[in-house]
């Protein structure tokens, strides 16, 4: 499995090599530190413009979690197993539903029973390529993302001890964990590793390749005329390439593009509960908790006021299957997304971010014609190939760990 790094880092690292000499070598060694190269990248962009779109290479694999067939199979079962969660009703696939783009087809992810989430469920497809997970980059790997999601109060709401205990009582898991990890009992940390290994196989490569990838690899017939015109808008008048660039069609950085708050927070009591909980859980100040009326995004990571309303640039592959769009799912179609950008980051009612002072200078009215919009949407379609499907695994059953005879013997020995 190649350890090829994604293009933005490569480009950034290359530039950084010029700027910082050997410090960039560290960046090269560690994809998770790609963000360190961001200033250099910005300087590079100022000089040379954004990195060109590039075909998707091989998914990066961390050295401490090699991909094996047995591990992927185990991870697949765990991904679909609702017992990896609080009340055994809510597993990974509950909110990352393969039939809904490995995401969730409503604005907010459905969340743990008795709650609703507050952000849009992101697709698992290609997630192995990202140095940081979640909309605000709060997890630095698939492994950490899986753990956070399984344990979060409005997601899986599971606790490590009970989840690990359940696995110990399922003979098939005992056998599979022993085969894969050599451990006497399944360990919860290995659960996150197995799930991540499975996720790293869910990519738009091979038979799931996309027209854009085929085109970028040299098949000039892969895009239609309309899509090629859309590509020109994407890279030119539309300015999309400014952030949606490189191998992921994302700079993997954080921007405030003007997304307005989801109106559901004004109408849905359950959503209001989660909204306040999230302010609380993410370490808001008292004043922040009292006053917040939208998701402050990247702010929660470093508590810098200039990060309010910033979210990670969404990669564009597989978007044909992952509606609705944006961190809070406010747009249900790509048409709405394009119109939003065309207006300079305003929705059809003229609403925008509650932090206009942080809105990216790159976002301005585009003056696209209807034809240009249609072409652009056609081009966005080139980022999706066949739907990624897997056969849903059978859930292994519980079985008692001890026999009655063993229990009787223990009772006698007391």
């Amino acid at each position, binding site marked *: 499995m190649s350890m090829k790094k994604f293009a933005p880092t490569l480009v950034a690292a290359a530039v950084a090599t010029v700027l910082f000499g050997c410090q960039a070598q560290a960046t090269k060694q560690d994809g998770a530190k790609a963000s360190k190269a961001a200033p250099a990248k910005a300087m590079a962009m100022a000089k040379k413009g954004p990195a060109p779109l590039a075909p998707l290479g091989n998914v990066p694999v961390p050295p401490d979690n090699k991909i094996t067939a047995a591990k992927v199979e185990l991870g697949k079962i765990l991904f679909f197993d609702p*017992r990896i*969660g*609080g*009340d*055994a*009703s809510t597993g990974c696939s509950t909110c990352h539903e393969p039939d809904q783009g490995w995401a969730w087809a409503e604005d907010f992810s459905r969340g*743990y*029973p*008795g*709650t609703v989430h507050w952000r849009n469920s992101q697709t698992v497809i290609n997630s192995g390529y990202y140095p940081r997970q979640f909309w605000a980059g709060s997890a630095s790997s698939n492994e950490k993302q899986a753990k956070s999601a399984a344990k979060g*109060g*409005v997601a899986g*709401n*599971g*606790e490590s*001890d*009970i989840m*690990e*205990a*359940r696995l*110990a*009582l399922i003979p098939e898991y005992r056998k599979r964990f022993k085969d894969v990890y050599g451990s006497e*009992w399944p360990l919860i940390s290995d659960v996150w590793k197995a799930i991540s290994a499975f996720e790293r196989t869910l990519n738009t490569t091979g038979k799931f390749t996309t027209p854009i990838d085929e085109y970028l690899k040299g098949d000039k017939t892969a895009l239609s005329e309309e899509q090629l015109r859309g590509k020109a808008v994407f890279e030119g008048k539309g300015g999309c390439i400014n952030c949606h660039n490189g191998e992921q069609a994302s700079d993997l950085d954080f921007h405030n593009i003007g997304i307005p*708050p989801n109106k559901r*927070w*004004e*109408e*849905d*009591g*359950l959503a*209001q*509960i*989660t*909204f*306040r*909980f999230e*302010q*609380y*859980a993410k370490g808001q100040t008292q004043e922040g*908790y*009292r*006053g*917040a*009326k939208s998701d402050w995004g990247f702010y929660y990571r470093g508590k810098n006021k200039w990060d309010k309303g910033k979210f990670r640039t969404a990669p564009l592959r597989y978007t044909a299957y992952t509606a609705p769009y944006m961190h809070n799912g406010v747009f249900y179609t790509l048409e709405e997304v394009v119109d939003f950008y065309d207006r300079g980051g305003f929705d059809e009612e003229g609403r925008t971010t509650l932090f206009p002072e942080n809105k990216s200078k790159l976002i301005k009215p585009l003056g696209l014609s209807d034809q240009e919009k249609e072409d652009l949407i056609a081009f966005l379609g080139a980022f999706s190939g066949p739907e990624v499907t897997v056969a849903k695994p059978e859930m292994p059953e*519980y*079985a*008692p*760990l*001890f026999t*009655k005879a*063993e*229990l009787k013997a*223990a*009772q*006698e020995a*007391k």
Partner: protein
Amino acid sequence: MGVRVTTGRSLLAAALGLGVTISAQAGQYPDIGPLPQLKTNAAKAELGKRLFFDRRISGDAGISCSDCHKPENGYAHPDALSPGYPGNGHFRNSISLINVAHKKVWNHDGRIGTNLNDMTREMLTEDYTMNMDMRIMQERAKQDPVYVKMFKDAGYGEPSNGSIRKAIPEYMKTLTSSGAPFDSGKMSASAKRGMATFKGKGGCIQCHNGPLLTDQKPHNTGVAENFDVFMDPMNHQTFIAFTMFQGIPDYMNLKRDPGYFNITLLEKDMGKFITPSLRELKYTAPYMHNGTIKSLAGVVDFYNRGGGKDSNKSKMLKPLKLSTQEKKDLVAFLESLSGNQLTSSKHVWQQPYPAEYEAISNWTKVRN
């Protein structure tokens, strides 16, 4: 008998080789008798009552405190093993909450020895009981106008998880024995004879003393394991999660409930459980920490045999050689410790809860 620092009374008892019939022994223990009255704040207790019966204070909004502590079962549960949180079972019997506010130590293994506020937190947050992230619980309460008003009226200000953990214990204080023949002096002749056996030949008073009829100390009486703890993976997973979290050695191979061993990790405490109160037990069958004895007659028989089989069993337990009549009288006495059921609206929240959370109107304009 090595000199171990336990309590003077048990030491003395042990030294005297109790279990022998000495009616004088009753005098060596805190007297059984009526419980002192507890002062309660009506508004806070009323709020606690609404919370106690509200399923929305569990993680998936599936169970309330009252689902394992049912009013009609003396605020305990009729199953041998408590149902636990959806998705798992439990490995011990649900303890009655009547008079719980009088206790100094909580849980069968006595792992909480501070106050009911901590006990409430434990039950709310443990993954196998209510699995509640209290930050969500607080925001749920703030979303219900009835709670907003009740918290304010109770002097708590806005709803918070801190005041939830105060209000529920305030309600607990209202769950106290009332009208027990033992307290009102209306005991039958049989119950009175049973009391004499209790204090004398039966030796029950050695551990079941004081107004609660418990010394609130750990003892090993040799209660047999409930095999359902291990044969049903739903229960066993909770047992494993608990012993793992508590740091019990070799928890995966454990085939018995370690009891008080959990607190000290000393072998001498293996299989000890805190003496339960005997009040209101008429409603709280089945008995013992794991619900393995179905009736009071069964419990009396168990002690008459000198308890169960355990190398670590208390030296206080010996065959009692009680006559049929003595056993009957003893049961009559035990039943006289139970009073009126606390099942009326005075103790039970009987109004419906809203089916969904109403949105706070004008949300963009008001402060959170």
